[in-house]
């Protein structure tokens, strides 16, 4: 068992001085202080017994380095270590890892040595690893010459306390978020370990200071009641919801936070507890996401621009190829030999097909780059215009196109015409044995209209349901059906630009039904 420190060396003057500087009172003895060793030993024994007998308070002595030299029964009860286990070890082992990392044990000793006495509430660790909130008083022990002999620490477990304030402080301390309690004047009256860590201050540097030191803008303003509403009303508006603000650390660096406020009525008025969460990570993730989306949409746009410019600029040289092969054919067909006629015919045909491809590629890229505003559109009128454009094909094939009453939708009118035109045109083109019958209908589903274009054509094998919507995808030879295979890709792109989906149901020989959805009429 270690000897209590410094007792036999103190004089009354020392005691007074020690008192004045907040030093130890342990040495204050009524009598026999200057008496023989015998008497003193008796006193010492009494004190030892007294200290050891105290169960509710942990009383610990340390040397100037924080090495534990004495440990009472209360300490064993509260912290779990026996005296034999702990004496000779640094009191740092009672701190939570975060505090150890930031050098809090040494710092506490320094503060106590400077001021003589230090009171705080802090998290401590038991032998079994569990944590608790301790209210503790550290006292510097000095000899007559002012030389530091060591420290005493008296502490008790707040979480065991029945006092509600203590319980509250315990909860506050154990909270994973930084918690700061502020009074109506905007001064910090309480804060927890997480707050110390988050802002980089020691507790004693913030207590009594303005909260604007750590949250410059947006918090203090919310505490102030104006003429029209009480403080409680002012606060009620901000309670519960997360408020995003900027916080400032001791080193001046700033970081984004979200704070949740809750009022706390006490005898002195309303206090506000702010739970402060560092949202740097979330903010960074949000910024990263926004950036990714922007990059993606930019690269998409660039791609569309590229397709547009490429197809547009390719038209010029291609027009030359087409024109001159046609001129060649016109002037020299039948005037050279049979091979020459073949070659010219292939060149004319190739150039013509390429022209169609480029025209369609341009049409496809225009869906994205040249789209117009979404307005309320009579879909029946769009269909009428599409049918007018298809008049020739309808008459040639003997097709009968019918439709139910069609609704007003929110759409790009020109694109809706093109959509109907491409779908009806396909329905006619891929006709079955009889005359093509095409029927259009629309059913409402929530805020969308589902359109169907049903035909009695040759149908599509389900294995091609995905492929048919791809660019330049064709299921048939050019001899059977004309076209570049862009029609449905354009349809899909138009529907997607309108926030819908285009799909198909079909069986070979049993016709096809294409369905897509558009937004209902928008309120003016």
């Amino acid at each position, binding site marked *: 068992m270690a000897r209590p420190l410094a007792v036999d060396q103190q004089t009354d003057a020392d005691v007074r001085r020690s008192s004045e500087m907040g030093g130890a009172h342990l040495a204050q003895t009524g009598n026999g202080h200057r008496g023989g060793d015998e008497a003193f030993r008796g006193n010492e024994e009494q004190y030892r017994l007294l200290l050891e007998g105290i169960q509710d308070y942990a009383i610990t002595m340390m040397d100037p380095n924080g090495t534990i030299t004495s440990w009472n029964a209360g300490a064993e009860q509260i912290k779990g270590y026996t005296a034999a286990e702990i004496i000779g070890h640094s009191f740092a082992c009672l701190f939570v890892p975060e505090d150890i990392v930031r050098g809090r044990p040494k710092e506490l000793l320094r503060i106590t040595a400077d001021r003589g006495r230090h009171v705080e509430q802090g998290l401590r660790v038991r032998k079994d690893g569990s944590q608790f909130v301790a209210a503790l008083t550290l006292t510097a022990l000095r000899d007559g010459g002012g030389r530091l002999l060591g420290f005493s620490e008296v502490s008790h477990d707040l979480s065991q306390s029945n006092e509600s304030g203590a319980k509250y402080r315990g909860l506050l301390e154990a909270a994973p978020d930084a918690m700061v309690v502020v009074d109506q004047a905007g001064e910090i009256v309480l804060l927890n370990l997480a707050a110390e860590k988050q802002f980089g201050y020691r507790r004693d540097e913030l207590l009594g200071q303005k909260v604007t030191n750590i949250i410059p803008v947006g918090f203090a303003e919310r505490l102030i009641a104006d003429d029209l509403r009480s403080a409680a009303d002012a606060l009620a508006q901000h309670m519960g919801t997360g408020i995003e603000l900027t916080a400032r650390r001791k080193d001046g660096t700033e970081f984004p936070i979200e704070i949740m406020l809750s009022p706390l009525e006490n005898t002195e008025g309303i206090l506000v507890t702010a739970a402060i969460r560092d949202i740097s990570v979330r903010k960074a993730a949000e910024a990263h996401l926004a950036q990714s989306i922007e990059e993606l949409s930019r690269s998409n746009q660039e791609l569309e621009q590229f397709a547009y410019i490429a197809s547009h600029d390719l*038209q*010029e040289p291609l*027009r*030359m190829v*087409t*024109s*001159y092969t*046609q*001129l060649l054919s*016109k002037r020299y067909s039948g005037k050279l030999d049979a091979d020459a006629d073949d070659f010219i015919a292939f060149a004319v045909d190739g150039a013509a097909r390429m*022209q169609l491809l480029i025209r369609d590629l341009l049409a496809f890229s225009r869906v994205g780059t040249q789209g117009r505003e979404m307005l309320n559109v009579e879909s029946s009128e769009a269909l009428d215009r599409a049918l007018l454009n298809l008049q020739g094909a309808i008459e040639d094939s003997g097709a009968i196109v019918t439709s139910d009453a069609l609704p007003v939708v929110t759409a790009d009118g020109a694109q809706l015409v093109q959509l109907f035109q491409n779908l009806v045109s396909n329905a006619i083109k891929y006709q079955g044995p009889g005359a093509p019958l095409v029927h259009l209908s629309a059913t409402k589903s929530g805020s969308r209209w589902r359109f169907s274009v049903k035909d009695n054509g040759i149908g599509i094998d389900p294995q091609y349901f995905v492929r048919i919507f791809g660019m330049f995808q064709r299921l048939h030879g050019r001899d059977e059906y004309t076209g570049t295979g862009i029609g449905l890709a354009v349809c899909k792109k138009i529907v997607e630009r309108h926030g819908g989906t285009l799909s198909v149901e079909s069986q070979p020989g049993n016709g096809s039904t294409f369905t897509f959805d558009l937004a209902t009429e928008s309120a003016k």
Partner: protein
Amino acid sequence: MTFIGSNGMPIEVLLVEDSPGDVRLTREAFREANLAIQLHVASDGVEALAFLTRTGAYAEAPRPDLILLDLNLPRMDGRQVLAHIKGDDDLKTIPTVILTTSEADSDIVMSYTLRANCYLSKPVQLDAFEGLVKSINDFWLTRAKLPQRQPAR
């Protein structure tokens, strides 16, 4: 009163076009349409203005009866040439037809705003192009009454 094309006078047409392929195609098409047409070519806007103002190598250039103007040209583009022609008291009476590949609404609106007499886009197919040139000849150089040319200076 004499009108262009009558009494054996050649019809002077200025084609402002930078693509030799298009120049030749237009020449071929006019040859089929009207042998009386004298086609002059300026391959950019600067040349076109030199021709019209009879500057430098073009001191002896005739005043055209019709101008066919492409919009996208090197050095000085067709919009600037058009603005110059229609802003010039002497030149503004010459019918100026825009003949270009552009089908952009903005180009069409701008051309008429700058007082182009007509806007035509070049068709892709040879037949259609020949038909267009023929219709230019039929309308502008045959049916339309144009101001009489000033006697050469």
